């Protein structure tokens, strides 16, 4: 069936909730309203108020209770309506979700999937365009999954809903309805921790995830037209990260461009560059290039186009790296 990302996530939630009676969806407006992006549309009618909970308006309350639910037998799937409002809940994610397994030496765990609509480029109000992967990647004990297509969204969510650890499921809202693609109706899983080589090439490796994969594809196609052979890797999951796939590619191309829409300083590109230095220093033909947002507060919508990496900037990064 040909569906967009919202439909893919919705379908997956429906199927997995039928399969596993322990799955409980919760958050602000996820029930009657079906979510402000309609991702949970129809679930309330199908599964009822006990399994699709319209919670009071409190991110801290949502994640705190979701942790308790998960630790004592349910599989909670809390939604934070926009990632920019997650900070209230961060305390619980870091201090407890990430640590309960270790604290109890495995006696308790938190099989919770936090759905986080993230990313900018949709001309939204302040606090609605964040890309905060770094704040979670810095915390041991949290998995982070970030699909870049409807197919990946369904398969990665299915895996996340079977995972025994807390998973942050980043939904690039810029891609929610950006395109449709063929997605199997039946259950399938995409392994957490494995990157996806979207396109093989020999001159430069481009690494991206989520919304930036979509934007990078355009730049990669343009670079190919200009005679640069690009290997494009979509990470799919950032924690655990598929370092092996990065090593395999960069040791072949010797050149790497990382694209992310988070700010430059301590963005995941910094970690990738450092790992490449450690592992592939002798293969490198050029410094690792980062194409990122600037180290400033995300602007209001009128001027946000200057902020996020676009096709032009990514292409420039690829060309500079290829010609270095």
């Amino acid at each position, binding site marked *: 069936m040909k569906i967009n990302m919202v439909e893919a996530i919705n379908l997956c939630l429906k199927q997995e909730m039928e399969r596993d009676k322990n799955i409980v969806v919760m958050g*602000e*407006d996820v*029930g*009657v*309203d*079906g979510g*402000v992006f309609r991702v949970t549309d129809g679930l309330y009618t199908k599964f009822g108020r006990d399994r699709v909970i*319209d*919670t*009071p*308006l*409190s*991110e*801290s*309350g949502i994640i705190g209770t979701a942790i308790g639910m998960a630790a004592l037998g349910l599989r909670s799937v809390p939604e934070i309506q926009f990632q*920019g*409002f997650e*900070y*209230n809940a961060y305390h619980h994610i870091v201090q407890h979700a990430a640590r309960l397994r270790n604290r109890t030496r495995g006696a308790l765990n938190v099989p919770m999937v936090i759905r986080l609509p993230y990313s900018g480029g949709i*001309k*939204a*109000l*302040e*606090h*609605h365009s964040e890309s905060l992967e770094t704040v979670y990647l810095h915390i041991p004990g949290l998995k982070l999954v970030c699909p870049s297509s409807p197919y990946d969204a369904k398969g990665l969510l299915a895996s996340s809903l079977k995972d025994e650890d807390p998973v942050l499921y980043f939904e690039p809202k810029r891609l929610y309805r950006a395109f449709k693609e063929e997605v199997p109706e039946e259950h399938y899983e995409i392994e957490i921790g494995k990157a996806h080589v979207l396109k093989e090439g020999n001159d430069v490796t481009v690494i991206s995830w989520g919304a930036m994969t979509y934007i990078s594809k355009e730049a990669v196609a343009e670079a190919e037209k200009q005679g640069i052979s690009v290997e494009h890797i979509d990470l799919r999951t950032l924690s655990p990260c598929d370092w092996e796939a990065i090593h395999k590619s960069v040791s072949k191309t010797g050149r790497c461009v990382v694209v992310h829409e988070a700010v*430059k300083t301590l963005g995941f590109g910094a970690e990738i560059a450092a790992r490449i230095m450690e592992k592939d220093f002798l293969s490198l033909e050029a410094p690792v290039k980062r194409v990122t947002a*600037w*180290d*400033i*507060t995300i*602007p*209001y*919508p*009128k*001027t*946000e186009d*200057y*902020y996020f990496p676009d096709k032009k900037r990514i292409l420039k990064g690829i060309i500079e790296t290829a010609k270095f």
Partner: protein
Amino acid sequence: MPITQVFEGKVDYMQIIDKDGVVDSKLEPKLPNELLEKMYRFMVLGRIWDKKCLVLQRTGRMYTYAPLEGQEAIAVGSTLATESGDWIFPTYRESFIYHIRGTPLDMINVAWMGMEDGLKIDPSLCCFPIAVPIATQFVHAVGGAYSLRAKGIKSAVLSYGGDGSTSEGDFHDALNFAGVWNSPCVFIVSNNQWAISVPRKWQTKSETIAQKALAYGFKGIQVDGNDVLAVYSAVKEAADNARLGKGPVLIEAITYRMGPHTTADDPKKYRSEEEVAYWRERDPIKRFQIYLQKKGIWNEEYEQKLIADCAKIVEDAVTKAEAYTQDPKDMFKFVFAKMTKDTKEQMDECFGVG
């Protein structure tokens, strides 16, 4: 030992003008006609401006907007009850307050048209920028009030939120701190019945929101939030007392969000037409119009002139805002007091310099 009662509380409800414009003469504040007219003018202007913003958003001339319709009496009544040195910490739904306080209307449009310059409010107007995260302004207000008192300034500090905001920890932190510090704060909860799609009854099991103040050791009162005189009187008394050092008050203003949460929301998905119709009969402007008519202030001619004046103000503010430009480079200029070398380099890279 017998069990003894250790706490007893009560919460009053105040309405001065009912939905049909009938006034309770015992509670009616004896306000000068000039102020009454100002109240009406701002409510009408607020509504016309609000409707225009919706049109602008629907036609791609404004970004996501949070409508005010139905809640004009709270914004207008509370603001006009303050003195110029009182501080106001609004949410996104009360941005019109900036204009009541003296900000040009076109600059509020500039903010909703996606430019930070719109929130560069003249500090002499004593207004905090709107808070998009829920309930955070309440705690900032308590801190602001502490600062004013430390500097010997006897001002009240107003902060606003919706019924949904009372579920956030920050709301409770604010009330707790304000109680302990005896802060000169007036907390105004616009209970408009809906936090996007979640009804008030799913937000809290408390019968009233006002009663939450009792748990923190100070007074909570419920008012008809669609009655501008009730809002005005409650806020005036609370703010006057706050300035005298008598501590904080929580005012729950009962109202209704007539429109969507924001332009991105579709309320038909979660609430009935009947409910909306019930509240339309309780419109804040209509009843005040009847009140003013009985006072001999309002008539049809008065209305037509006022509407024409307001429409012109709104149109002018749109024209001015649409002509407004903000230098994109400014996004780099306000990160720190002094731009760092690294920020400068990134700015140059962004704009293709060097």
